């Protein structure tokens, strides 16, 4: 590759996302993505390794810091975060209050240095490797997190399907919905399209595409609250329902050769909540449809905070989106899925487009 050539400043054509969705990238919560901050810590250097046992034993009782770090590196031992030591205090003065035995106290005050150590335990190998140059750290590799990071969590067939639905969002917005936002809900088990929703001209200020989508999913479960002039598809089969899909979208897809092989319809709500007791099955398989449990949500636009939380309440399994939004709450302004206190968490993915690649 010729790196001396000037960047290609071709005229920006209107983005033709239809053909341009190139990949999928997981948006991991901050603890996976961020570089691990360093904090200052006091360490000492023992004269011999024979001292280690006694020193570590007393340290772990009296100064139980650094659970995420290895306390010893060769003959160096971590004592405490430097911030614990008072401004006008020496290390020795600080340690006096902990009543160390005399020989340990003497050992702790030898070869004292201030070192930088990682503030928390790394979650991914890349983070772990970066921490190594500072101080040895504990690390529990997680295969699934690593696969999300490197993209191997999807099989190539799955990846192709997700990208197809991503491209479908772009097409439906362009061909049916005047370039306004569109969302699709998919039951990933078949996979089958459960619902489609798009914002319309008459939408009220808070009726975002995502809010309509969860309401249309409710329609597939004989619920739904929003009054709408949209006509929905009539059912033609016994065991599944098309009532979550507006007729305009359904007809478009039925009459389009490219989408002949897509499956449509949601499992109907189960009368009594009989348990399909397959050990290890997820809640959707076990109990049948309930809100968006087990369902995947695909959105043209990154959802705002209201919509992102609506998807938490609805227990969506995964959220995929194409374009960032100025008020987006999964990547742009906030990462709602990073908030640990919430009672449900979904995974978040963004489609990468040809444009993104041109920028990098």
């Amino acid at each position: 590759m010729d790196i001396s050539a000037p960047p290609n400043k071709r005229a920006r054509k209107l983005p033709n996302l239809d053909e341009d969705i190139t990949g999928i990238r997981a948006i991991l919560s901050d603890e996976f993505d961020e570089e691990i901050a360093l904090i200052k810590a006091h360490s000492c250097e023992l004269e011999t390794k024979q001292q280690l046992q006694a020193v570590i034993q007393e340290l772990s009782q009296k100064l139980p810091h650094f659970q995420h770090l290895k306390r010893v590196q060769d003959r160096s031992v971590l004592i405490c975060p430097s911030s614990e030591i008072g401004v006008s205090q020496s290390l020795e003065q600080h340690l006096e209050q902990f009543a160390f035995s005399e020989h340990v106290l003497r050992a702790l005050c030898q070869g004292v240095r201030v070192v930088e150590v990682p503030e928390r335990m790394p979650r991914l190998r890349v983070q772990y490797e970066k921490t190594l140059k500072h101080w040895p750290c504990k690390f529990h590799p997680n295969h699934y997190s690593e696969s999300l990071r490197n993209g191997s969590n999807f099989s190539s067939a799955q990846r192709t399907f997700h990208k197809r639905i991503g491209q479908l969002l772009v097409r439906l917005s362009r061909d049916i919905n005047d370039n306004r936002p569109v969302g699709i809900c998919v039951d990933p088990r078949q996979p089958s399209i459960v619902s489609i929703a798009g914002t319309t001209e008459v939408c009220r200020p808070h009726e975002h595409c995502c809010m309509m989508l969860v309401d249309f999913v409710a329609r597939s479960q004989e619920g739904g609250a929003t009054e709408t002039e949209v006509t929905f598809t009539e059912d033609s089969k016994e065991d599944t329902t098309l009532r979550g899909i507006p007729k305009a979208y359904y007809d478009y897809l039925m009459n389009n050769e490219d989408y002949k092989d897509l499956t449509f319809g949601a499992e109907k709500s189960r009368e009594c909540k009989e348990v399909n007791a397959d050990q290890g099955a997820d809640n959707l398989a076990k109990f049948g449809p309930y809100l968006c449990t087990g369902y995947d949500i695909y959105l043209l636009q990154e959802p705002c905070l209201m919509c992102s939380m609506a998807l938490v309440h609805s227990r969506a399994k995964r959220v995929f989106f194409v374009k960032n939004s100025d008020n987006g709450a999964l990547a742009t302004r906030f990462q709602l899925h990073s908030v640990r206190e919430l009672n449900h968490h979904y995974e978040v993915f963004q489609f990468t487009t040809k444009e993104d690649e041109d920028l990098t």
Partner: protein
Amino acid sequence: MAAFMEEALVEARRARDAGEVPVGCVFVHGGKVVARGGNEVNVHRNATRHAEFICIDAILATCREKRLPARQLFSEITVVVTVEPCIMCSAALHTLGVKEIIYGCENDRFGGKTVVDVAAVVGHRIEITGGVRADEAMALLKEFYKGDNPAAPPQAKKKK
């Protein structure tokens, strides 16, 4: 304004009697209740039908019917709700620009003030006062969660 909390509690009890999570809300404008509602999640099978949204929709319907400017009306509305609005409702209320929010008990699971600073994300801050008749609001919730949510799958019930 705190006097209107009784009205919100009436809505919360009504929701409880209908088998919904007992949260109630009234919107107050010019010293009068202009919208009222309780949770309607289970009946619609839609987890976003919180009491606040029932009221928001009522106001928007009024605005449409009477051709009133919604933006202006919301800016003069005080929201009185028995439980701290969740992140979703709080985001909606901040975006619509209501005048203030008064709530009963805190929502430490997904409160729009306690768990996430919604105002910072939305980029607009409004006055929020909590703790008004909090014990009564909390007692309603506790009573409800002792029983089963009839709409939730059995496994979700067990956790509660």
